[in-house]
């Protein structure tokens, strides 16, 4: 009788179906695609934004342009020194270039959205206000008046 048969040692555990594995991974993939955004530029300056407890979220990420201020990353310090620099898009710039940068950014937004354009100042917490003030003055001159000081929530509590 097969019920008590000697062939029980030949009986195998059925293999675990891996057909749903790809579904799980795709789900993960979609999660990351939805929650993240493309990194548009490579950081050339070290930016550790300061902490602030009253931060608000930016409503429209696509209407945002970034001005990074900080010391050059270590690999570039030999070339550019350790003085705080301004990074626009992918290269080091001076305050005089902000005007062109803002004009280009404004051009890239659609007509109706231009007034809502926000300039996000991502400055390192150790930079001096002098350079930030220069940037702010230049932004006022270009009448890009909506700005945002990037900050992060305090890590404690």
């Amino acid at each position, binding site marked *: 009788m097969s019920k008590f048969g000697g062939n029980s040692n030949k009986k195998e555990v059925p293999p675990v179906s*891996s*057909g749903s*594995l*790809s579904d799980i*991974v*795709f789900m*993960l*993939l979609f999660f*990351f*695609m939805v*929650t*993240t*955004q*493309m*990194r548009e530029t490579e950081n050339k300056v070290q930016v550790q*934004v*300061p902490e*602030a*407890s*009253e*931060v*608000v*979220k*930016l409503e429209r*990420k696509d209407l*945002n342009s970034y001005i990074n201020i900080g010391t050059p990353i270590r690999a570039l310090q030999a070339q550019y020194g350790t003085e705080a620099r301004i990074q626009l898009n992918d290269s080091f710039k001076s305050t005089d270039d902000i005007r062109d940068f803002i004009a280009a950014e404004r051009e890239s937004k659609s007509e109706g959205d231009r007034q809502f354009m*926000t300039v*996000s100042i991502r*400055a*390192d*917490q*150790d*930079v*001096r*206000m*002098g350079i*930030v*003030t220069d940037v*702010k*003055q230049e*932004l*006022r*001159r270009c*009448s890009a*008046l*909506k*700005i*945002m*000081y*990037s*900050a*992060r*929530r305090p890590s404690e509590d």
Partner: protein
Amino acid sequence: MAKKKTPALNTSSTADIAFLLLCYFLMTTTMGSQLGLSRRLPPMPDKDAKVEDQKVNRRNIIIVRINSADRLFAGTEPVDVSQLKDKIKEFLTNPANDPNLPEKEVQEIEGLGKYAASGSDSYAVSKGVISLQNDRGTSYRAYLQVQNELVKAVNELRDEFSVSTFGKQFAQLDEEQQGIVKKAVPQNISEAEPKDVGKRRR
């Protein structure tokens, strides 16, 4: 044979492909949501417009100054960052109607009467302005910390007003009610022209 089965497609590599895609997106994208303090810069004054000193009453303005050593002064006395919030709140509310603290102006705020206990649209809005001045040598960290304290003071006042008028925190109000609160407790933070600060240093 009529019932010949088609061989199943080997799908074991779809997971690998998906993993590859996943890794690609993990590498090229950033998570971080954009957080920060929103500000509106004052427009640049016209060059040919004559320099007209805005007549702001002395009592209506508090000058918060940060020097190059990150020391903080509110008005004339040195204060610590932790005390700044309470000082600003006292300045903006002026509970004892002190003649040295800002005056209040009764304004008509549309829609307030529906909610307020008094049933009228008028509310005494403080005319206080916070003027923030900094040195070129101030560190950005100290500057933002002060900015944060100023915003916190205003936010707490808005919360207090919301609770007393609507019985809810500011964040839970709808858009119209938030507009009323914003009118009743304005956020008047002005950032001084940097050249003034430069002069002071010399």
